[in-house]
């Protein structure tokens, strides 16, 4: 048992840190990114590919250089640190996981992901599905040799830039059935798309399919498993991202407490605030530990893997809220302003609780996989 990074991973981490620092260091405020029409900077995305930041998320089985829980953790913690908006989550984690869970040949698409050539979005959530993995109303029907998709997917991350969509659709059964689901690939752009910025400055779309031709990737148990695997990979990724964000919020707040003076003293000299900072410090270490546990056991059997990721996501939800709210409060007015970068970190941190299941959702999952 040990908790250090291997030499290779430490190198990867340092490289990515420098890379993101070079590119994001110039951006004074995260919301400059969210004004970009594409929702992200294609130049950064392409360069990230060449330094191995995408392949770090993908298993050697698909010519990647990583793809373990630990890799996801390391890379996403840095993504959080810089509030990096490129499609690492949608394409690098979700779609690559979905593809690798379909049990079919996906080598070409994986190559295109690793090389940064293609943005691929995983379109699963619907406006009323909340966090249910099996809630699917979008319909897939087969006519002759072709599949046709009908219905609307919501909250499709980076949907407007995607050249390929992986869509979950119902072949048969009721809305919440775990069976009767298919995962489909759509290459065309024959759908209505309504892109928007999210409140935390990322990019998503609502996509409506009217008899759109699609090819079936997998179905039934494999498809449901594919959704679970994808959502859990994403849950680990955003939990790791949250760690980077929380550390940044904490650091910004410590800096502020040291410089802001009131009543002739730095406000950091007030004991009541000091004690609250210590509480934050403890909770952040706890959250970090929980994510490490999830990442370090990500290659275990599913009950353990899901259980530990759910534990991490639950704790991230609880601690993230505490950190976001306390850091704003401890800043006072300045923490409420658009110009000051804390608000971007705080908003992302809170919105992570709205992605891939909130803390309540994952406490239920934790109980389920712990056989309570």
């Amino acid at each position, binding site marked *: 048992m040990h908790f250090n990074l291997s030499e290779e991973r430490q190198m990867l981490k340092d490289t990515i840190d420098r890379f993101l620092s070079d590119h994001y260091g110039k951006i004074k405020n995260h919301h400059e990114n969210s004004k970009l029409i594409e929702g992200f900077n294609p130049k950064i995305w392409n360069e990230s590919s060449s330094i191995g930041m995408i392949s770090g998320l993908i298993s050697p089985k698909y010519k990647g250089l990583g793809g373990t829980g630990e890799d996801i953790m390391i890379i996403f913690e840095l993504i959080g640190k810089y509030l990096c908006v490129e499609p690492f989550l949608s394409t690098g984690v979700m779609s690559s996981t979905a593809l690798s869970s379909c049990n079919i040949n996906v080598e070409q698409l994986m190559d295109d992901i690793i090389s940064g050539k293609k943005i691929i979005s995983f379109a699963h*959530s619907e*406006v*009323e599905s*909340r*966090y*249910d993995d099996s809630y699917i109303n979008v319909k897939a029907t087969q006519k002759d040799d072709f599949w046709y998709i009908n219905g609307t997917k*919501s*909250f499709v991350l980076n949907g407007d830039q995607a050249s390929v969509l992986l869509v979950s659709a119902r072949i048969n059964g009721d809305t*919440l059935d775990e069976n009767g689901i298919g995962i489909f690939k759509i290459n065309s752009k024959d759908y209505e798309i*309504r892109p*928007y*910025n*999210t*409140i*935390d400055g990322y990019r*998503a779309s*609502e996509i409506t399919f009217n008899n759109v031709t699609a090819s079936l990737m997998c179905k039934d148990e494999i498809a449901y498993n594919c959704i679970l695997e994808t959502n859990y990979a994403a849950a680990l990724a955003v939990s790791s991202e949250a760690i980077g964000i929380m550390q940044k919020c904490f650091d910004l707040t410590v800096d502020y407490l040291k410089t802001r*003076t*009131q*009543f*002739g003293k730095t*406000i950091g000299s*007030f004991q*009541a*605030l000091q004690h609250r900072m210590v509480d934050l410090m403890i909770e952040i270490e706890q959250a970090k530990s929980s994510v490490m546990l999830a990442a370090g056991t990500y290659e275990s059997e599913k009950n353990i893997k899901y259980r530990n990721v759910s534990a991490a996501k639950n704790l991230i939800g609880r601690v993230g*809220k505490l950190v976001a*709210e306390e850091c*704003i*409060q401890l800043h*006072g*007015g300045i*923490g*409420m*302003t*658009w*110009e000051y970068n804390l*608000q971007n970190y*705080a*908003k992302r941190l*809170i*919105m992570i*609780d*709205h*992605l891939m299941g*909130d803390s*309540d*959702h994952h*406490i*239920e999952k934790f109980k389920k996989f712990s056989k309570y």
Partner: protein
Amino acid sequence: MDFNFTREENEFREEVINWLKENLPHNISEKVRSYKRLSKEDYEIFMKKLSQKGWLAINWPVEYGGTGWSTIQKHIFEEEIVKANAPRIVPFGLNMLGPVLIEYGSKKQKEFYLPRILSCEDWWAQGYSEPGSGSDLASLKTIAIDKGDHYLVNGQKTWTTLGHFANKIFCLVKTNTKCKPQEGISFLLIDIKSSGVEVKPIITLDGEHEVNEVWFTDVKVPKENLLGEENKGWTYAKYLLTHERTGIAGVPYSKSAIEHLKKISSTIYNNGIPLIKDPIFSSQIAELEIDINAMEIFNLRTVSAASEGKAPAMESSLLKIKGSIIRQKTCDLLRKAIGPMALPYISEQFDEGWNEEPIGPEYVGKIAKQYFINRKISIYGGSNEIQKNIVAKSAFKL
């Protein structure tokens, strides 16, 4: 102890409800309900109607145009205007400056300014906070130099709510820097249209413009605009901050928010079960509702004690602290309730006249914004930390 409203109080409530039905324009209440951006005119239309009815200055004595209402009546009134989705009554002239003018203003000032507040001719802004002085108000730096018949004012105020709508601003300024900070402060009434005053927007984390910076560069303020005595401003400033405010706990907002929360929780499904039946989520709602019900009694106990002349200085701090936490908690559960529907941020949705299809039900668009912007409730008007310091000092004599 009697928890029933009297017949007179119930009749008063009816009167308020009926008056609002007839006088609050539907397009304005619709904007408030759907969280659309309000124009200056929207506020003024409603306030002018209240003024005509004689219901605008609920905290002023009758002789100056106040209502003479009991605290229970004020409570009922405040509850009903929130329920009716009225724009809020802009408090800077009415509830802040007004009482100070009445207590400390000269006869001439009262005769000039009070009617202009009632008629909505003047829109006042508050010039207290500065970039370097938030909690530590007395450390302010804006300076007013005596130039015989006028003061020359230089400095900067901040967090000036709706300052971009205002034509007047009351300011704390330094008129003596060679004494204890509290003893060199004066209270000035300044015309925003004066040369040298500049109002600059501050955009808050929800992307909205409600607060401002106000810069003063060699602004000439006539001596007659000094309120009370020179260097006594700290007394007036404190009077303003501690003056009885029935609404400090924000109970009507919390009550209306939890009703909304319960309503939407019966339409949002989690794993096939409406959230209001979900054991975990419904318990969170229930605990909050219990807290709000207790807070309402706590608030009424305090205001009714105040109306019997018992000084509520410390209690208003307690109400402010807990009231803000509860309001924030309602926003928190609302955001949790809507799950991923909290993500989309379509700014145009809050402009008048936007009529595209929203993403998800119409009400979801505002919820995440409200959650974030309402973090301010525990910060402004003396942060909760400052309130706790005040209570500790006065309650425990520690």
